[in-house]
């Protein structure tokens, strides 16, 4: 078991490193002139500087080193928790992140809980209902859920619940009421995906022979659905959960912008507008780390839910 654990952790670290590297190359390699971007982010014009100043600036940003040296230097500092300085705000990036991360974590956390409850609940009910027209209608709901642009949904909710009914504030980062609308907005696309997958899962499970065995014991439909159906139908959700982390982070950027919350998401949006490269790199690295950690946990916990999966070394054909 330990060998497997080490292997998976190693793999996770490899993926994380790959993600960091790709982002680094996108940010530092793709643009025509990294220096002018960084200068304009700091509020300076490249043409206004003398060659001597340009050279000083290059050294300051660490752009005078060779490509790989620069990369190694940045990676080394990142591993020590130092993501450099924000170009536009002139503060250490780590400090900025530390300030804004709790907000985003609360938002993401509540959204995840809501989406699980909502998604699983909707799918469970859809499988429970026997009246065909109602079931078909409910089966279409998840599809609607991920057809809706998350930012538009936020605006709609603000219009109805904040401006129209006045139940919740439209913006702000303080207090529980300001969390409600953003969390619901962020939860809906994920909930739709969970509901869809679980619906399919139930459709599949209802046809399995062990369901007939359960009925033959004398169980009622509700009992069969709960005791034998749910666990087996919900297995794919565990893997999905890991993958949804990415979508939640992406959604957070949009939701925080709409509801004017002081989180990492809005920080990302501002950083891109100002082409603040170190901040963007740091935020992407942190998100990738979150994704990798969550998926690693899911992978390790999977056998608890599905006893058929063990952590014995698998044949090479299984990827």
């Amino acid at each position, binding site marked *: 078991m330990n060998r497997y654990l080490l292997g998976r952790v190693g*793999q996770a670290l*490899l*993926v*994380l490193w*790959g*993600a960091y590297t*790709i*982002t680094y190359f*996108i*940010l530092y*390699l*793709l*643009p025509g002139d990294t220096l002018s971007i960084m200068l304009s982010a700091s509020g300076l014009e490249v043409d206004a500087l003398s060659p001597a100043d340009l050279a000083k600036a290059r050294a300051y940003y660490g752009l005078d080193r060779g490509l790989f040296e620069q990369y190694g230097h940045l990676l080394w500092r990142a591993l020590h928790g130092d993501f450099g300085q924000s170009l536009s705000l002139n503060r250490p990036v780590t400090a900025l992140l530390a300030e804004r991360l709790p907000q985003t974590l609360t938002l993401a956390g509540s959204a995840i809980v809501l989406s699980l409850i909502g998604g699983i609940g909707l799918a469970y009910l859809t499988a429970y209902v026997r009246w065909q027209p109602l079931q078909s209608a409910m089966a*279409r709901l998840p*599809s*609607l859920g*991920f*057809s*809706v*642009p*998350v*930012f*538009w949904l936020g*605006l*709609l909710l*603000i*219009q109805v619940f904040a*401006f129209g009914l006045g139940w919740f504030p439209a913006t702000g980062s303080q207090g529980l009421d300001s969390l409600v609308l953003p969390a619901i907005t962020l939860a809906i696309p994920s909930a739709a995906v969970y509901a869809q997958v679980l619906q399919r899962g139930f459709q599949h499970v209802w046809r399995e022979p062990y369901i007939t065995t359960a009925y033959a014991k004398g169980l009622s439909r509700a009992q069969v659905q709960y005791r034998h159906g749910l666990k087996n139908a919900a297995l794919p959700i565990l893997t999905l959960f890991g*993958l949804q*982390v*990415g*979508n939640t*982070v*992406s*959604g957070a*950027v*949009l939701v925080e*912008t*709409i509801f004017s919350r002081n989180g990492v998401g809005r920080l*990302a*949006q501002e*950083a*891109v*507008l100002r*082409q603040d*490269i170190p901040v*963007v*790199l740091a*935020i*992407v690295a942190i*998100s*990738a780390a979150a*994704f*990798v950690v969550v998926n690693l946990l899911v992978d390790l916990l999977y056998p608890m839910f599905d006893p058929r999966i063990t952590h014995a070394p698998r044949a*090479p*054909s299984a*990827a």
Partner: protein
Amino acid sequence: MPSSNAVHNLDRRFGSPSIQRLPATTPSAPLPVEATTPWRRRNRWSRLLSASRPLLRRPGFMLAALVVAFALLAALAPGVLSGFDPNATAPLAKLTAPNATHWFGTDELGRDLYTRVIHGASLSIQAALLAVGLALLGGLSLGVLSGFAGGRVDALIMRVIDVLLALPGLLLALAIVTAIGFGTLPVALAVGVGIIPGFARTTRAEVLRVKTLPYVEAARLGGASWLQTLWRHILPNAWGPVAVLATLDFGAAILATAGLSFLGFGAAPPAPEWGTLIATGRHFLITAPWVALLPGAFVVAVVFSLNHLARTLEEIKR
């Protein structure tokens, strides 16, 4: 008799075996070629047409198809659907509610909102098409290569896909846009790269599934090379779920490009990209909610119809 001639022709072509076969009794005289039971070779198109006829009777499907057709028309020939000029400002008529002349009302500069939405369709849909096209190209090739080759190649490609997956779609897009600048093209590229993992994985899963099916083995035993097998059997049977995913991702790409232009990274104003329309409308939410909400409703209608089409296709295939 013609039929047995065919048999003899084949026999002569590859010679007689060195082992003596037991004397074969010739079959009773077969019918002449102009047989009494003629059979028409129905080709694939007529089969497809007859399969799609029951679809015409489904109201939901037809409605969704109509909406998508409308959106495509708006993308290709916006002038057909609206007489107004999307950029013509009329400050006196600003922020009027939807009425008979202005179906969606007007925005803060007095421009007809409906027209702007129609013209925005071409930008957004082109961007989405580009994104899905890029993703299909990249994802399909990676998936087929990975599923077909197996072994080390497969493992390597899957690691790369894992890395791409670890980067959240929007953030990856943000990084790309930071690097190469704003505009419709960078947005489309960014969204496309984010969708590649999904295609690669689905294609790979399908290729792996079909590769081990008995009829593929039978084809190989019948003398087909791997390339022939890939072309004749594996690809045609693997493309089903990929087509469904492509339709679904087309909708997702529309949403993603709208999201990026909402955040301000799309084409510069006055380009009426859908996301930009919603972003500007945001400021007038209290006084003129239709400016932000109606374009969004249109987007929802288009994407939902696309999803419906995808689901119907999937159901039909089963």
